[in-house]
């Protein structure tokens, strides 16, 4: 698997394991929270880019969660760059 396929697989797996938490909205919030909390900035950006460019390999819950998660990604602190 290439890196993007791995990330897609991971996102779907997280969604599958959280799909039974209440409504789809509640489940999506859990998945988004998980991605926010545990994924590196570069991984988040890659999966967001994929969602916007194609997204077809992501299951529906993962798609909703990634869309939610993108608003919480923090910009790279300016004083760490370079």
């Amino acid at each position, binding site marked *: 698997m290439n890196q993007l396929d*791995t990330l897609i697989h991971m996102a779907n797996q997280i969604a599958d394991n959280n799909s039974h938490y*209440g409504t789809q909205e509640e489940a999506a919030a859990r998945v988004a929270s998980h991605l926010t909390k545990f994924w590196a900035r570069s991984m988040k950006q890659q999966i967001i880019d994929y969602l916007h460019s194609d997204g077809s390999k992501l299951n529906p819950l993962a798609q909703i969660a990634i869309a939610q998660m993108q608003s919480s990604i*923090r910009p790279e602190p300016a004083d760490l760059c370079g």
Partner: protein
Amino acid sequence: MLQHFDPTKDYGTPASLSETLVTLEIDGVEVTVPEGTSVMRAAALHDINIPKLCASDNLEAFGSCRLCAVQIDGRRGLPASCTTPAEAGMKVTTQNGKLAKLRRNIMELYISDHPLDCLTCPANGDCELQDMAGAVGLREVRYGFDGENHLDAEKDHSNPYFSFDASKCIVCSRCVRACEEVQGTFALTIEGRGFDSKVAAGQGGDFMDSDCVSCGACVQACPTSTLMEKSVIDAGQPEHSIVTTCAYCGVGCSFEAEMKGDQVIRMVPYKGGDANHGHSCVKGRFAFGYATHSDRIKHPMIRDSIDQPWREVSWEEAIAFAARRLKEVQAQYGRESIGGITSSRCTNEETYLVQKLVRAGFKNNNTDTCARVCHSPTGFGLKATLGESAGTQTFDSVMQSDVIIVIGANPTDAHPVFGSLMRKRLREGAELIVVDPRKIDLLKTPHLKDAQHLPLRPGTNVAMINALAHVIVTEGLEDKAFIADRCDDKAYQAWREFILDARHAPENVEAITGVPADKVRRAARTYATAPNGAIYYGLGVTEHSQGSSMVMGIANLALATGNIGREGVGVNPLRGQNNVQGSCDMGSFPHELPGYQHVSDDTARARFEQVWGVKLDDEPGLRIPNMFDSAIAGTFKALYVQGEDIAQSDPNTHHVESALKSLDCLIVQDIFLNETAKFAHVLLPGSSFLEKNGTFTNAERRINRVRKVMPALAGKEDWEVTQDLANALGYPMNYGHPSEIMDEIASLTPSFTGVSYDKLEELGSIQWPCNDQYPDGMPTMHVEDFPIGRGQFAITEYVASEERTNRRFPLLLTTGRILSQYNVGAQTRRTDNQVWHDEDVLEVHPSDAELRGIKDGDWLGISSRAGQTVLRARISERMLPGVVYTTFHHPGSGANVITTDSSDWATNCPEYKVTAVQVEKVSQPSEWQQNFRAFEKLQHQLLKGDAATLTDGNGAG
């Protein structure tokens, strides 16, 4: 804690735990002791030392030697003080003419059948028989030495670490009783009667042919030189000792390193150690020779590429080279293109420093630890449900358990000293439930009650835990008061509704797990109705695609039955390596600062920024598998690995090797040229646990001191190397001693604020949290509340692993470890432990073997979706049909060539326990193994700086 050879006092018999006190008089001294204390112990507690030979305070009183006879007013005869309980009003005399005569007579008989070679005896200076002869004033042996005796008895040298010299044996039975009571193996016995009585291993063969597991308890118990370490026979008695902590498994045993100068003569389990209470296993007790093995890397080395010879350089040059390469990579590929990996084999202070170097010096959060591949789901699952990423109990808590569930763990092999304690409790009558595809040795515990074994199919843990919970809820076995008082009601109601669904009923889950429903129902009832039910689990829980779900499922079960917050119960992860708990506590994970404080927590991060003097990244960094993927993708280019062998221990070896080869700079700090180092550009010599100061934190959150007993072979302790690298990178570190690092940890970590080296000296060890609220630490967690307020039930839907069998791969491979080897084997393979396990084999069930025409010892090709390797067959009924098993202790075995990228959904912990494979007879090693051998040969030549190998045509694999 330097001790100038003052052996720890032996009080003769175990302590009584009674709270009722009795007062008696011994030699005119008024003595008050707990009811049930022996007269011998009562006397010893008040420095009245009664002669003894067959008594030892880690063994029940035996009353065999009679040397401890005393006189008690109003009692007939001279009773043995070891077997006589102290009673209120008793008047005891321990020394008078009559007793002296009796004791001299007894010693005279012993000595009449004992070699008089004290001056040349290896126990000279450490012999209780010699001491007692002196104590009773023996001056002659009236019987002579010409009668029948045992002086020509055969010696047994079969064990690599100790000898059995029967001519020195006084048949006190201490070794036999230690094997039974302390270790629980029952390998030794007294054979024959009367004069013919003798200690025998097993059925009268030698020690190596018996069930002996070489724990050393018999050697420790022996009052003469009958059972004696070969290292002492060779080198003589040690002259000083230093208490330190074992560097093997997560039990974290305390040992006295007994020394002659800077040479370790033997490691003796320390009775004052709170984790092990004076017991040990074959690894900690005997397998320390690796520390001075000739393979040790003693000089820093560098090279530009992995096909070039290593060049020995000074520390300064190596550090400067490493720093320059890291800076160059970061300049070319960006801030996040480099990272570091810490190890659970390193101390708290070392792991803290590496993650600090990454976060503050590399300016990113690309730090991870080998807990990623073992217990990361424990951290996730227990924090989500109980609020703290740690086990809830002390090891001693098991002695209060009535029902013990062991899930996916093999304590007698992987955590042997705790396994012995557990066996002791099982012999006392606790019930055992094992949830494991394999028939582990715990099920064969002597004197075990009717144990329950749920041999589920690999990969179906969550279905099983849900079925157990379903029974508990549907049959009304929940602890409703506990749930109402301690648990979050909304989460509980959601979980209850989830678990009540009929799909979780054992009858409906049977097809998934393969375990009959009635067995599951019985086990659930047994656990739920026990006064104290405890769950212990290991990597058979965590190393699955649903490892985190399973950890949460275990917590659900404990919460639902109220088995949390007191002695005898709890959720107990058995950590694989010595400092798994510590490496996680110290902020090794990419998303958490020390003390499990998330990097996005602005308040916590600000505290670190203030003390560390730099701005920190507020987003998580890459995990180890993400680092590998990024390396192959070309965005991650440099890695600093301290004490970890990712090339051997991580799954899908082809993938790992590709990642390592993609790096522009790999810096490995290790005591050996491990498999990862063969792909490195900088090799920095590590220091063994004997060569440094620091602390380890064991599986019960116990912080123990690691004390330096010899100089670092390469001149630097590991923390000094990290500090040098930080300074060379321009991030200043100026610690003078690891205690200063611990002081910084305490200042930044809420659960460690009370921890210091001074306090560790004072208390011996500390179970965190240790802070203002719990100044001496906290043995049992969650007694009154949870760190998150109320316990959180979690929804744990069973999601089948994608790693499934089919016609091409019809068998399931599961992996594990054995007693004599440790993890990747880098340490134990360089000791005599090799005699027990010099190669990894594939265990195959007889029915699967018969189907394929496989016989014991055949070479088998094992193929999976990831790769192929070849191992020798061992026919075994320990697994179910359809399941095969191997260990990963030898790099050439290539066990991880076959394991896949499948991993836990929450943490990416690899699914080592489930790999679909096919097995067939073959006649030669796999292609990977052939390449491995060539590459290994090349790298060893390059280690010698042999540039000629470049033109020899030895291909890099």
